[in-house]
C-alpha cells in the first residue's frame, strides 16, 4: 500500500536518503529502526510532502507527487510528528478533531471517530478541555497519537512515539497501540524508533535505515539498530 521507489532526498546540500526502495503491505505494522540521524524522520516527512525529493512514493497505487501535501491527509494518512506539534491555541479535544473538520467529516462521523479515539486513549477524555499548550510532553504524545487516529484511516505514521516517555507512560502508549491494532486490523502502521526492543511485541516487520539506505531487519535482537 506504500511503496518507495528510488527515493533520494537532499537537505541543505547533504544527501539524507539515497535510492531508498521498500514496500509496505496493507495492515502491516512496520518498525522503522535506525540510529539518530539515519533519516527516519526524513522518510516520513517525504510521505507527507515536506521534503524535496526525487524518485516516487506510491500510496494505494497513486503517485504522491501528484497530490499536494495538504491533500495527503485526506487520503487517510495520519502523522504524529516526533516533537508533538500540537496547536497551543486550542484545547486537547479541538486538536484531536481538527483533522476531521478540515476533511469535512459529517458531525456524526466526527463524533464517531472521536469516540473511537477516546476508547483507545481514555486518558485523553479527562484532559479534553485543557489547553493543548498546558499538557506535559508525554501527554502531548498521546494527544498527537489521537490526532493522527482521527484522520489516519489507511496509514498511521508515528515518529519516535516512545522517545522521552516515562516507563509507565510508554507502557500505556504501547497498550494503546495494541488496542488500536485489535480494533482496526486493516490500518497500516509505521513506527520509527531508535530502540527496536520497544516495538518487538507488536511489529510484524522491521525496516532498518542506515546511512541513508534501507534494508530488511529483524526484531528478534537489537543488533540491527547498532
Amino acid at each position, binding site marked *: 500500500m506504500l511503496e518507495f521507489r528510488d527515493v533520494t532526498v537532499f537537505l541543505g546540500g547533504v544527501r539524507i536518503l539515497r535510492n531508498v526502495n521498500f514496500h509496505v503491505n496493507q495492515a502491516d505494522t512496520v518498525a522503522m529502526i535506525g540510529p539518530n540521524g539515519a533519516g527516519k524522520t526524513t522518510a516520513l516527512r517525504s510521505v*507527507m*510532502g*515536506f521534503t524535496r525529493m526525487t524518485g516516487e512514493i506510491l500510496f494505494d497505487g497513486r503517485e504522491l507527487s501528484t497530490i*499536494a*501535501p*495538504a*491533500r*495527503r*491527509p*485526506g487520503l487517510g494518512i495520519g*502523522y504524529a*510528528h516526533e516533537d508533538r*506539534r*500540537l*496547536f*497551543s*491555541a*486550542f484545547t486537547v479535544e*479541538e486538536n484531536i478533531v*481538527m*483533522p476531521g*473538520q*478540515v*476533511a469535512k467529516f459529517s458531525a456524526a462521523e466526527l463524533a464517531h471517530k472521536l469516540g473511537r479515539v477516546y476508547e483507545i486513549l481514555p486518558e485523553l477524555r479527562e484532559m479534553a478541555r485543557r489547553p493543548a499548550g498546558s499538557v506535559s510532553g508525554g501527554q502531548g504524545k498521546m494527544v498527537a497519537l489521537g*490526532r493522527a487516529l482521527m*484522520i489516519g484511516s489507511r496509514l498511521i505514521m508515528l515518529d519516535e512515539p516512545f522517545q522521552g516517555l516515562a516507563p509507565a507512560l510508554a507502557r500505556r502508549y504501547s497498550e494503546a497501540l495494541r488496542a488500536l491494532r485489535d480494533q482496526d486490523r486493516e490500518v497500516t502502521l509505521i513506527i520509527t524508533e531508535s530502540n527496536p526492543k520497544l516495538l518487538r511485541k507488536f511489529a510484524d516487520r522491521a525496516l532498518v535505515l542506515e546511512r541513508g539506505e534501507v534494508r530488511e531487519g529483524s526484531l528478534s535482537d537489537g543488533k540491527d539498530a547498532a
Partner: protein
Amino acid sequence: MNTQLFALAIFDGVAYAALVFLVAVGLTLIFGVLQILNVAHGSFYAIGAYATASLGGMVFAAGFSPYLAFPLMLIVAVLVGIALGGLIEQFLLKRIYVKEGALQLLVTFAVFMILEDVQRLVWGVQPYFESSALQALGNIKVLGITYTVYQLIVLPCIALAVLICLRLFLRRTLSGKLILAVTEDREAATSIGIDADRVYLLTFIVGAALAAFGGALASATTSVVPGMGADMIVLSFAVVATAGLGQIEGAALTALLIGLGRSFAVYLMPELQVLVPYLIMLLVLLVRPQGLFGIAQARKI
C-alpha cells in the same frame, strides 16, 4: 487645561484611535500570519476612502438616503479586500513568501507606489468630501461639548465590534481556527490537511478589507486627498510595532494610547502633534523591544 478641553481631547483621541485601529489590526493580522509587513496596506485604506466618497457622492446626488452610506462602506471594504487584496496576494505575494523580509518589504512598497499612481489616475488630485453619513446621524452634547454621534459613538462602537468579531472569528469558526493553526505551525497544519496557501489568501483578504473599511469610515470625517494612505500606513506601523507584531487586542489598546497622545498634543503642544505617536513608539521600544504586548518567542495571534 480645563475640563472641556480635556474632554474634547479625549473625544478626538478616541474617534481617531478607532480608525487607526481598523487599519492597524489588519496590518498586524497579516504580519502575524504571513510574516509580511504590508506597506500596500495604506493603499487599501486610501482606496476604501476614495471609493466610498466618490460612489457615495453619486448615490446621494441621485437622491438616495444618506444611511445607504453604511452598507456602501461595507460593500467597498469587501470588494477592495477580495478584488485588490486577493489579486495582489495571488499574483505577487504568493511568489515571495520564501524570500527574505527586505525583499518582501520592497515588493509591497512597490505595490504601494503603483497604487498611489492608480489613485491619481482614477480620482485625480482634487480632494473628495462626502460627509452625508456623519451629518445624517447629527450631534450629541456630552459634558457641554457638542460632538458628532458618528465620531463619538459610531466609530468607537464599530472598532470594538470589529475587535470582538475578529477574536470570535479566529477562536470559534473553522476558518479562524485554520488561520491560528497555520500561524502557529505551518508544517503541522499541513500535515492535518490544512491548505496553508488558502489560509494565507483568506487572511490577506480579511486584512485588506479591514484597512479599506477604515478608509471608508474615515471618508465621512475628512476630505479624501492624495497622500492619506502614506500617512496612515506610517501611523499604523507605529501602532503595530508599539503593540508588538501580531497582537490584535494589543493593537486596539495601543491605537487608543497613540490616538489620545496625539489629540492631547494637539491641545497642549501643537508643534509636537505629528511627532507624538513616534515618540511613544520610540519610548516603548527602547524599554520593551518586543512591544507592549509582544511575547518574545511563540508565534501566535
